[in-house]
């Protein structure tokens, strides 16, 4: 059992929780991008299987947005940049 004061243990736990929060890449619905094209980008860029790419595309279409990747911030920034390169409306943020 630890003999560390309760307060400092609490601080450590909070810091770790913050570091562990993953970031996400989101794709938002827009009226221009074609459903087929969005699916093609998910299959080509992420290499997602057809069913997963299709499900994510439908989430974007019906729910207005979908989380297409989760991970460290730098990686989510890279995905965002690549997806914007494809013309998709991509953003990144801390997972909530």
């Amino acid at each position, binding site marked *: 059992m630890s003999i560390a004061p309760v307060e400092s243990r609490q601080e450590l736990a909070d810091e770790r929780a913050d570091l562990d929060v993953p970031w996400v890449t989101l794709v938002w619905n827009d*009226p221009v991008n074609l459903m*087929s094209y969005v699916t093609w980008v998910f299959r080509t860029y992420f290499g997602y299987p057809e069913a997963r790419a299709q499900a994510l595309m439908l989430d974007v279409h019906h729910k207005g947005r979908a989380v297409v990747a989760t991970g460290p911030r730098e990686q989510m920034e890279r995905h965002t*940049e690549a997806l*914007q*390169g494809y013309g998709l409306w991509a*953003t*990144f*943020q801390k997972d909530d």
Partner: protein
Amino acid sequence: MAHGFRRERVRRRGAASRGPVPTTYVAILDAQERELLVALMTQVLSIVEPPPVAPHGDEFDQMMAEAGLSHLDGAGDRPSPAAAAGSEDLDDPDRDPALDRLLPDAHREDPLLSAEFRRIAAPGLRARKAANLAAAIELLTRTEMGEVAGTGRGRTRDDVRLTEEEAGGFAVALTDVRLVVGERLQLRDDADAERLDTALATGKLDEPTGWLVAVYDFLTWLQETLTQAMLDRLDDQGR
């Protein structure tokens, strides 16, 4: 008459039949249609191209900015004057709204994170989009006639032929053009698209807008055929 992109399968015999069969995507577009695409792509290229870098400042920084590599100059977070000059139109409050459509905010709640991302990513993104549009223009203006490998048939003047690699870039170029035309038509959400469809169906659009809608529909049709053919190719590869 024009037809959209289709896959042309090259049949190979004997030992050569092993390994992946190359795919060519072929559309038939007449001179007027190709000219329209080239004109639109040229316009979008001029919007997306990074603005000329101010002649002052460090020559190396300027070179890196022109190559879209400002963030790789080893300086990390140091703001490079050349990089700032290379995307200053993004900070202009009177900027073309199409630029925001091509390079949207990367973070919806944190303007500082968005600005930082834009500073780092925009020069490269713009350079890549510009290069991609230039390649698509080049593909549409290729005029050489010649035999299509392995088919014994020549390409006709109205064929637009794309290799696997060219096809992906061409689809991206069509997307960027549709984003800009869509912005001009003020298509910002699905409701806008429905409003436009209704106005078109009831003859309530003025002539220039009606023409732009026709252009947009042509671009949509062309991209849809290309994308379906590319998806078909992925299915064949079992991916």
